[in-house]
């Protein structure tokens, strides 16, 4: 195992990195360690057969096995889509979002940057005119069922999911 400094000193023609820390704030901080170097972010997409058409996956994203990315989905930089999660049509995942295992995002869901979605949560679908929105740096607890929008910087849990802090 190497430190960041040791890694950056390795002789190579092409260097790539990815940050796997689940906490979005810490992940953002660690990514900044690489920002002034020649190292480039690489997206890691396992099981590409389950990623459908017309989707965009930005650099630094991780899509784990059995995650299904449906059509017209956008996944932003350094976001994690964990095992067995499902992103239905027209979902938009911004940068530094963590989707834990077995999360279901029904269609037209927008998850703003830095948000954390707990394992097994379900997010009800939005519409073309009014997507369901999970706000900036917000959290949705494990097993929750989100039927409303989730405001920026808030934490919702339960079924139906409501604010706890």
């Amino acid at each position, binding site marked *: *195992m190497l430190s*960041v400094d040791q890694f950056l000193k390795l002789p190579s023609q*092409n260097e790539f990195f990815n940050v*796997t820390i*689940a906490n979005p704030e810490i992940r953002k901080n660690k990514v900044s360690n690489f920002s002034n170097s020649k190292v480039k972010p690489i997206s890691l997409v396992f099981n590409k057969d389950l990623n459908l058409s017309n989707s965009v996956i930005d650099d630094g994203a991780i899509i784990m096995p059995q995650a299904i990315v449906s059509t017209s989905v956008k996944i932003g930089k350094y976001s994690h889509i964990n095992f067995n999660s499902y992103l239905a049509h027209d979902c938009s995942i911004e940068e530094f979002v963590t989707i834990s295992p077995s999360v279901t995002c029904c269609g037209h869901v927008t998850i703003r940057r830095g948000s954390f979605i707990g394992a097994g949560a379900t997010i009800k679908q939005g519409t073309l005119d009014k997507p369901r929105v999970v706000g900036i740096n917000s959290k949705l607890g494990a097993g929750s069922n989100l039927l409303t929008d989730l405001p920026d910087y808030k934490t919702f849990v339960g079924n139906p999911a409501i604010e706890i802090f």
Partner: protein
Amino acid sequence: MFSNVIGVYGAAGFGREVMFLLSLNLYSLVNAHAPEETLLCLIDDVPSIKES
């Protein structure tokens, strides 16, 4: 000297899962980057993790 080096930061848990999957899927993931000349590195700065 390797043509490519891929570093995965975070060795506490999820990083090890990703590294394992990366080693199994290297050819399909980085076939444009010469997998036979690619070095995989697990990276971490937390002392207790780094020394374990």
